[in-house]
């Protein structure tokens, strides 16, 4: 039985359809990530689930109850905002206990719940401070604490790590993952960062222009993208997607007569850079990026007007330099085929 179910949900702002018909089911205890480029509607969808934005068409059910027309305050959901949205005039303790006070929970229970949440989040010594005396990371944790204390049916996170610096982002990401493991709460998490999506999610929902492109586990999306958009959105660096018309030789690697129109995609880690003449295709190195553990080699195949740039990734240090002639080696079973419209075709059998 699905815990949260969206049926044909649409949102219009005047004439513009921002969410164009979304169907989604989420199971209890799942960590679902909404991911997509800016403007794809992921935050809007989250807000519609939260009740902060109304739904024009469709319905939302939570734990068997239709919550479509229910106000936010009655949906039993908790949200962590991108800007944290802490109450500036209240102490950390009051911020975290606000919802419980509104629900007329008795003082002793409030004390117990808030202290426990504060312990989990290392906020005990800050309970009497006000938000302005806290750092970004601490404010973030208060925002999370405010949500935890309520033990809601679903946790909603709206790009919670966007305002943190890189180091803190990584650390907090782990904290969120640990929290989910310990609490087992159903969570919907919105981000534009696919690394967060890949590491935190049980399932990822990829959105574009108000529509769901694909739903699946992170590795499913990585290994079997439904279309070109998902293929290139998930994975860093981006999957190499080459127009067959620009580089027929790539299609040749698959075998004669296999694919003649559309695109071929291959992930950088499946492209090997070898010495000139020792591979399937000649190329010239344009750029080398050494990331320490990984090295990215950008090589151009063909000429400037008929060819492609291919990125290769290896976990050894580069022995080549820009300008060098090399050869690229592919493994056809790692190719992804897309038709002209970008839809994924069954992979070439090999």
């Amino acid at each position, binding site marked *: 039985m699905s815990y949260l179910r969206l049926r044909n949900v649409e949102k219009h702002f005047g004439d513009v359809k921002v969410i164009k018909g979304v169907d989604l089911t989420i199971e209890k205890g799942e960590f679902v990530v909404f991911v997509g480029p800016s403007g794809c509607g992921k935050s809007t969808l989250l807000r519609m689930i939260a009740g902060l934005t109304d739904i024009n068409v469709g319905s939302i059910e939570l734990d068997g109850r239709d919550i479509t027309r229910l106000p*936010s*305050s*009655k949906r039993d959901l908790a949200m962590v905002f991108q800007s944290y949205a802490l*109450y*500036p*005039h209240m102490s950390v303790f009051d911020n975290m206990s606000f919802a419980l006070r*509104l629900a007329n929970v008795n003082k002793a229970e409030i004390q117990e719940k808030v202290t426990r949440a504060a312990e989990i989040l290392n906020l005990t010594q800050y309970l009497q401070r006000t938000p302005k005396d806290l750092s970004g990371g601490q404010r973030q944790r208060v925002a999370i604490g*405010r949500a935890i204390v309520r033990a809601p049916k679903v946790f909603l996170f709206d790009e919670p790590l966007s305002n943190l610096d890189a180091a803190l982002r990584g650390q907090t990401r782990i904290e969120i993952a640990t929290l989910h493991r310990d609490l087992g709460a159903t969570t919907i998490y919105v981000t534009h960062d696919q690394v967060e999506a890949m590491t935190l999610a049980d399932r990822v929902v990829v959105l574009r222009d108000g529509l769901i492109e694909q739903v699946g586990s992170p590795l499913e999306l990585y290994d079997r993208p439904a279309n070109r958009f998902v293929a290139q959105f998930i994975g860093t660096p981006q999957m190499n997607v080459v127009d067959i018309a620009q580089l027929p030789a790539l299609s040749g690697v698959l075998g004669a007569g296999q694919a003649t129109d559309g695109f071929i995609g291959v992930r950088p880690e499946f492209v090997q850079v070898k010495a000139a003449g020792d591979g399937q295709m000649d190329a010239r190195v344009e750029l080398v990026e050494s990331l320490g553990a990984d090295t990215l080699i950008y090589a151009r195949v063909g000429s400037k007007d008929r060819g492609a740039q291919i990125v290769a990734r290896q976990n050894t240090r580069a022995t080549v330099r820009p300008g060098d002639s090399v050869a690229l080696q592919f493994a056809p079973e790692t190719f992804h085929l897309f038709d002209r419209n970008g839809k994924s075709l069954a992979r070439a059998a090999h």
Partner: protein
Amino acid sequence: MKLLLLLVRTLAAWSITLLIVFPLIWLALTAFKTELQAISVPPTLFFAPTMENFTEVNLRSDYPLYAKNSVITSVLSTLLGLAIAAPAAYSMTFFRTRRTRDILLWMLSTKMMPAVGALLPVYVMAQAAGMLDSIAALTLVFTLSNLPIMVWMLYSGFKEIPPDILEAARMDGASIWGEFRHVIRPLAMGPLASTGLLCLVLSWNEAFWSLNLSSAKAGTLAVLIASYASPEGLFWAKLSAASLMAIAPIVVVGWFSQKQLVQGLTFGAVK
């Protein structure tokens, strides 16, 4: 050079202040003169102060009644005004539509019309409703006169509140009243207080409607002062005494809340 500039600036500031305050000082002085001293040419600057004017005003007219009416109409119109303006400002700030700006400008535009333009219809309506010379009519008119300004001031004040916080309160289970009580009121206390104070001052000083819609029963202090401009002539000393008694309370209130008043009138002007 700097000293000279400082001198010039100080002199200028004092001159302007004196210019503005002078009428009030003269009013206060005249209130303690005899009628003869009050109309003397050249004006008397040094004299023995007398309380006879205040006694006369108290004997001749019912100061406590007029003062009570002023207090009641000012306070009631302020409370009523806030009760209407706050939700209006809330709606316009946090649920903006394409028409919001037009509505705000339209509200302000009603203040541009001279009050006398509405005198006839309002008078006739008050008469038909049997509400001439009643506290209710005055309170209503004061509230409606001040509403545009109050809505504007509260709108500016509420805009400073991040809408996220209200959404967070909503998610935490607050109803609209809950949002107002727990979030808006504490965070917008300054604008709410200064808007209230401004309405209080405006209602207290309001003369046009008071003079036209009220007299013996519901008359405010404005009516009291005007009664000293009688066909018998202008009794300057008594007029000054009456005026002083009329403005004293609000000047005291204003003095103690000047910081709030200034804040209320100027916030949003400098970002």
